[in-house]
């Protein structure tokens, strides 16, 4: 598996290529070794520190406390339920392995690439604003205030994970996001997706996609329905969902599904209902036109004629509007 002692960061030095997370992920395939070696030639390969590394790190004990709190918020975001979180998820429900794992949208990447322009809200975002985005959409919530203890702790955790990685890297980042599998040979099919979901996923996420809490404690998050992310979330896009599934599911068996299966299941899941997009204008067609180029939002489901997103169910948060959505920035610069 891991064949050499792991230095905290191998990003810059290009040190030993046998190092890094993700490799052993694909230990079953010989390709894994080659993939990483190839990647390190022209991509930034960074291995974020672990919570064990934090204990031995030479940083101020107060900073350690805050980073620990950030990690705790990231992996148990349900502690903010009813205040900032209005669905059944943690940040780590999608950013697996505490936000460190390649191909599971590792989050330290944001700390070294922001501030930057973001197409989703059409202005320059910093790390806090990026985190706030996942609160408003992925957590169907309302972000903690900028500069609040929670926001500071979360961003401290993100930034610390990036320890040693270069700011504004000049190479693409290995394992960033949820890269989609190859285009499927056949168009994604709802019926095939349904069958494959029930065979491979329902044992944990349930037949109805509601996920599973055991004695009121989080175990399996819901891929759709009221307890899931809302329509505005990145993972509601077909391509992102296909990437997430292919790279990460079933839990513990990444890249075990075929490309076709991943697309079919993604099509099935993204054809289900979830809480309304907080950017909803009151009109599904208009909202689709303005914000939903890459999701099935606003489209008519073939088998039952249902128009996806045509409802005003915002989930548990009701009519609370996340303060960051549509918040104008840099208006004084917009003249230029």
């Amino acid at each position, binding site marked *: 598996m*891991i064949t050499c002692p792991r230095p905290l960061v191998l990003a810059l030095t290009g040190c030993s290529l046998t190092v890094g997370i993700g490799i052993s992920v694909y230990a079953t395939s010989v390709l894994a070794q080659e993939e990483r070696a190839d990647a390190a030639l022209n991509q930034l390969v960074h291995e974020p520190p672990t919570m064990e590394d934090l204990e031995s790190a030479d940083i101020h004990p107060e900073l350690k406390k805050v980073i620990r709190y950030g990690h705790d918020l990231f992996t148990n975001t349900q502690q903010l339920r009813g205040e900032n979180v209005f669905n059944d998820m943690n940040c780590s429900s999608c950013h697996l392995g505490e936000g460190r794992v390649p191909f599971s949208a590792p989050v330290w990447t944001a700390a070294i690439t922001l501030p930057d322009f973001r197409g989703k809200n059409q202005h320059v975002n910093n790390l806090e604003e990026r985190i706030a985005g996942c609160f408003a959409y992925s957590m169907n919530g309302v972000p903690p205030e900028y500069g609040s203890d929670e926001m500071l702790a979360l961003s401290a955790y993100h930034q610390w994970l990036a320890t040693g990685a270069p700011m504004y890297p000049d190479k693409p980042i290995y394992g960033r996001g949820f890269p989609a599998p190859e285009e499927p040979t056949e168009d994604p099919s709802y019926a095939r997706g349904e069958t494959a979901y029930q065979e491979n996923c329902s044992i944990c996420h349930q037949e109805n996609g509601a996920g599973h809490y*055991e004695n009121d404690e989080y175990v399996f998050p819901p891929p759709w329905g009221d307890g899931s992310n809302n329509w505005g979330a990145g993972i509601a896009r077909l391509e992102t969902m296909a990437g997430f599934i292919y790279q990460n599911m079933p839990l513990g068996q990444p890249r075990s599904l075929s490309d076709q299966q991943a697309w079919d299941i993604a099509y099935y899941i993204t054809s289900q209902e979830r809480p309304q997009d907080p950017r909803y204008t009151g009109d599904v067609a208009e909202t689709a036109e303005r914000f939903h180029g890459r999701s099935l939002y606003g489209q008519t489901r073939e088998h039952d004629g249902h128009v996806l997103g045509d409802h005003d169910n915002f989930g548990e948060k009701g009519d609370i509007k996340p303060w960051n959505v549509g918040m104008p920035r840099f208006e004084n610069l917009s003249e230029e």
Partner: protein
Amino acid sequence: MNNTYVSRVGLCVGITLIAAGAVAQEGNMERGQAAAASCSACHQADGSGMNVPDGESWPRLAGLDADYIAKQLHDFKAGRRDNATMATFANMLNDQQIADVAAYYSQLPATQGQGGDEANETLLARGQQLAERGDWNAYIVSCQSCHGPGGKGVGDTFPGIAGQHAGYIHTQLTAWKNETRSNDPQNLMGAIAKRMSDDDIQAVSAWYAKQPASADQESTQ
């Protein structure tokens, strides 16, 4: 739950969390107690089993999920789970008796796990890490992401492992690693065990043996 749907796609209903209860045979605890007479030599009258260091440990059955117990007995009978000792005893039970003993053991109060006393602090810390956070550098998903918070089990698919004997946890993980146990649905357990080192297995076995198996036990300790 939509049963017509399930049968349409030809699913094995028994493997999903909510569906299994619906199809399981109704067990009777009194009959179960009688049928369990032949089991107590190893699993003990109170279902506590026994940790047998360097030998074949007898798992605690008390407090395990009834459908999980029944599944294991069917698996032993059908040879899907391979163990000479248990094949003999499982073969003595018919389907009704399996449901009965499962019901009986599931309602016995869980007892404390044994073993793992030789583990030092470093090993226990590693065990706790694997249990609660996993080791994603080796793609070992935390045990609790499937076995639930505290390792107390989730539905009838993911058995409680907290408070199980260290020797038994150890043999099972090693069996999955060596592919001599493979009756888990979708290879969910096998995929994880194969990535664990022998030290990892020892660490997590010792740690779980020392954890309370149920909430009641936690409050009385």
